[in-house]
């Protein structure tokens, strides 16, 4: 059984950039504990000398021509997707 403390949940939420409510943090603490306990069964497997599989295509070094692909998308269109923009820039709250 994997033990997940309230501090662990806070830490994971911070790593994940999620500002959780207290209720949600409580629920997720229980869920994450049960999911991690379930997946722990993989520890039973002897994987000595086994190579990990990160991808299944067996493709290697796929190259494309070093040419500009014109997607016909304008800067204006992309900026319009942000909630706030001005002078061709996306506005964000003060950082410092």
């Amino acid at each position: 059984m994997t033990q997940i403390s309230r501090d662990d949940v806070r830490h994971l939420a911070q790593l994940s950039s999620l500002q959780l409510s207290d209720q949600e943090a409580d629920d997720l603490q229980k869920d994450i504990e049960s999911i991690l306990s379930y997946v722990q069964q993989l520890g039973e497997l002897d994987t000595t000398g086994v190579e990990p599989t990160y991808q299944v295509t067996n493709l290697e070094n796929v190259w494309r021509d070093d040419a500009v692909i014109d997607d016909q998308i304008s800067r204006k269109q992309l900026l319009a997707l942000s909630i706030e923009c001005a002078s061709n820039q996306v506005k964000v709250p003060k950082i410092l």
Partner: protein
Amino acid sequence: MNHIHTIVTNIKSGETSARQQVEAALEKAKANEAYHALLSLTEARALQRADDIDLRIKQGEEIGELAGVPFVVKDNFMAFGAPTTAASKMLEHFDAPLQATAIEKLEAAGAICIGKANLDAFAHGGSTENSAFGPTKNAIDMTKVAGGSSGGSAVVTALDIVPFALGTDTGGSIRQPASFNGVVGIKPTYGTVSRYGVVAMASSTDTIGCFAKNVADAELVVKVMSGRDVRDMTTLPDFFAPEAEARPAQKIGLIKEFMTDDVDPDVRERVDEYTEKLRSAGHVVEEVSLPMVKYTLAMYYIIVPAEISSNLARYDGIRYGHRTENAKTLAELYGRSRNEGFVTENKRRIMIGSYVLSSGFFDAYYQQAQKARTLLINEYNALFETYDALIGPTSPTPAFDFGENTSDPIKMYLADIMTVASSLAGLPSINVPAGVSATRLPIGVQLIGQRKSDASLLALARSMEEK
């Protein structure tokens, strides 16, 4: 509903028109709103495209293989004419600046997108109950779930609103809802169809496929969508060419781990009947074992959340997507925008991903899961030395009740137990309808092939439809 090629022939001959087909589909979509299968209709654009195609046909122009055929896409495909929401508050008002390659290819062949289907938010789920806009109801029994995550696409196909619909399948999200609604669902070999312009979930298993009423239609759609795309470097060089006939006397392995007493007896019975049909058709079916199946859910729920946590890091409330109001600092803006924009299941998976990728846990979880994945693939490879295809149920049960699995995430994950294995190995898998349960709910059989055997697997499935 007619085969796609009949619709196309009738449009080209003038017996019907693209406009009539699109209008009929839109009308039917509106008449079936109670199922909540669609999040939006792309009505204006669809009618305009239909008129354009009708005009070009009149002028004698050669239109493609899907001329005038209406279809629906899961709302995690970027498409023009309606927002691309991924059924989330995060992307509720996101107007895509481009279209997915899959849609561009279908449009180039003359098909017309009429609307966008409901899903579990960001495709995280197996019932469409995780949609931020409310669940989709099963096409056969409205008191049951549609399955998921591509629940809306399965339901619009089952209700004959359109002849085909697109979905994405990361761990069963096409096959399982296809099974729950009694339609054909194809998850092709990983890399068959470009994922450019589709909201990413878990990049090492995300695939694009479709739903249709029969295998031939699904084959045609996959053929049109497939092929190399410079915008998705994981796409395989063109390999998909439909085969006219199924090879005779194939050797097929029935996966015994999928036929245990835990599996619904009606499901096992329908699989046994399908197996008998295969034997009568001259194929050999033998029981085979895939012992690593026991570990596949554990692998899946490490690898997939890890990839989700990194793919969903892009939703920060800055460049696009939901942004919270009145945040004082940048950290608060990120944290609150993400908290408001994601549903609980998204957060669960992101946080599990953050955990298994953290230093100190990486080797024990993520690395171990990827090694276990190798062992699973080795078992599949050994079986495919002897067998042409594998068979089993698509889901351990028919469609379940609303709320039945929502309180316990592990219980919900167990519904994926028969589909995640082929996703982890990148194998083509198809759901074909195989009858109903005692309570008249659809049951599906899953056919699984070696990588790139899609065409022969589909030919086999097609040959069995006539039996």
